[in-house]
């Protein structure tokens, strides 16, 4: 009997003595606010269901009366005889005591013709319809996104295996057919859309749609004289030629080494020269730098 008690009045934001009009108004407003087709918050679907349940009970004078009287236990009478047939129903109600205050004939009517659960605010439900589409976030590292693969997600206690193709992009939607909310009245389920979110990468920074930036550490003499230096690309190490006389901030473009483009091909990788001075110099290096400094100042003064 440890049923969680939900205060339906509080849920709809109406006082306990609210009339039917006030309850309907409150329900309609909240239904518009939390309808999962209109509200993309992850808890909107649950809220919408709760509101529907509250309205189902409070809009029905019989159920409301039972709810007011029994609180959390208002449903017990219903659950005692699931799918009871006629005879069983009569027998149990007739001799089993039951709830003395219950209006017996109306309850029977409701059992025969079904409750209003799942029905709209203005009438009975009208047959099956496909369930809501859902959306979930799938966070991937840049490497995983480039490589493609499979992830196991747990949504609403269900494990879902999601395959994602190589080259998925930030913000891209992947559709998993039939993995959304269950359909109503045996309608088909909705779809699940996974929205790809690329995690920030320690080395690569996105630039525009398909390009990436990466820092390229270069020693001062390499920057001055020119050199071929190793560079990290998303698909592995490569070499890049640094032209003589490159200053920090110079962009060296590696064509086709960026992110895959949606229409085929790939963007570019921009290696940005970052002149890096060794923290500690050897004796010999210090000498050479001093000579360099001398010759530079001579040239400046001469």
């Amino acid at each position, binding site marked *: 009997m440890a049923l969680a008690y939900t205060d339906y009045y509080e849920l709809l934001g109406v006082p306990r003595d609210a009339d039917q009009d006030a309850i309907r108004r409150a329900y309609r407003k909240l239904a518009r606010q939390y309808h999962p087709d209109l509200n993309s918050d992850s808890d909107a679907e649950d809220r919408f269901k709760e509101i529907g349940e509250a309205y189902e009970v409070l809009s029905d004078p019989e159920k409301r009366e039972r709810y007011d009287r029994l609180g959390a236990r208002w449903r017990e009478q219903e659950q005692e005889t699931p799918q009871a047939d006629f005879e069983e129903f009569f027998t149990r109600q007739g001799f089993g005591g039951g709830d003395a205050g219950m209006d017996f004939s109306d309850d029977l009517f409701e059992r025969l013709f079904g409750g209003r659960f799942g029905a709209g605010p203005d009438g009975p439900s009208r047959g099956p*319809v496909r369930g809501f*589409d859902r959306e979930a976030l799938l966070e991937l590292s840049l490497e995983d996104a480039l490589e493609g693969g499979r992830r196991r997600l747990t949504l609403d206690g269900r494990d879902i295996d999601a395959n994602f193709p190589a080259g998925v992009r930030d913000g891209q939607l992947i559709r998993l057919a039939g993995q959304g909310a269950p359909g109503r009245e*045996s*309608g088909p389920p909705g779809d699940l859309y996974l929205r790809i979110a690329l995690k920030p990468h320690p080395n690569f920074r996105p630039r525009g749609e398909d390009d990436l930036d990466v820092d390229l550490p270069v020693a001062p003499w390499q920057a001055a004289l020119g050199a071929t230096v190793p560079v990290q690309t998303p698909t592995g190490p490569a070499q890049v030629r640094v032209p003589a006389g490159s200053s920090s901030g110079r962009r060296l473009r590696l064509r086709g080494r960026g992110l895959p483009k949606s229409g085929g091909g790939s963007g570019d990788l921009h290696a940005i020269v970052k002149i890096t001075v060794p923290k500690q110099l050897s004796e010999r290096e210090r000498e050479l730098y001093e000579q360099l400094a001398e010759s530079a100042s001579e040239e400046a003064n001469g």
Partner: protein
Amino acid sequence: MNSEEPVELIVVARRAGVRIALVRRYLEFGLFEAHSERADAPRYDPGSAARVAQAERLRRDLGLNFAGAVLVCELLDRIRELEARQ
């Protein structure tokens, strides 16, 4: 994103989980349109099923009429477009 071939109206109805008469009603209200102009065998975008289901849920849950449900779907499209531009 949806690379599937266009489908018949009955397929739209089945995927939306509703009767074909209801799908025709939404077609009359312009919720979606035929893919090709071939009048003898019209085909529809497979995404129409999700659209019909959405309109129908909105119509039932919020007490809208057909025109209202179609209008809300169109406004939702507009909102999505505007959000995507940001």
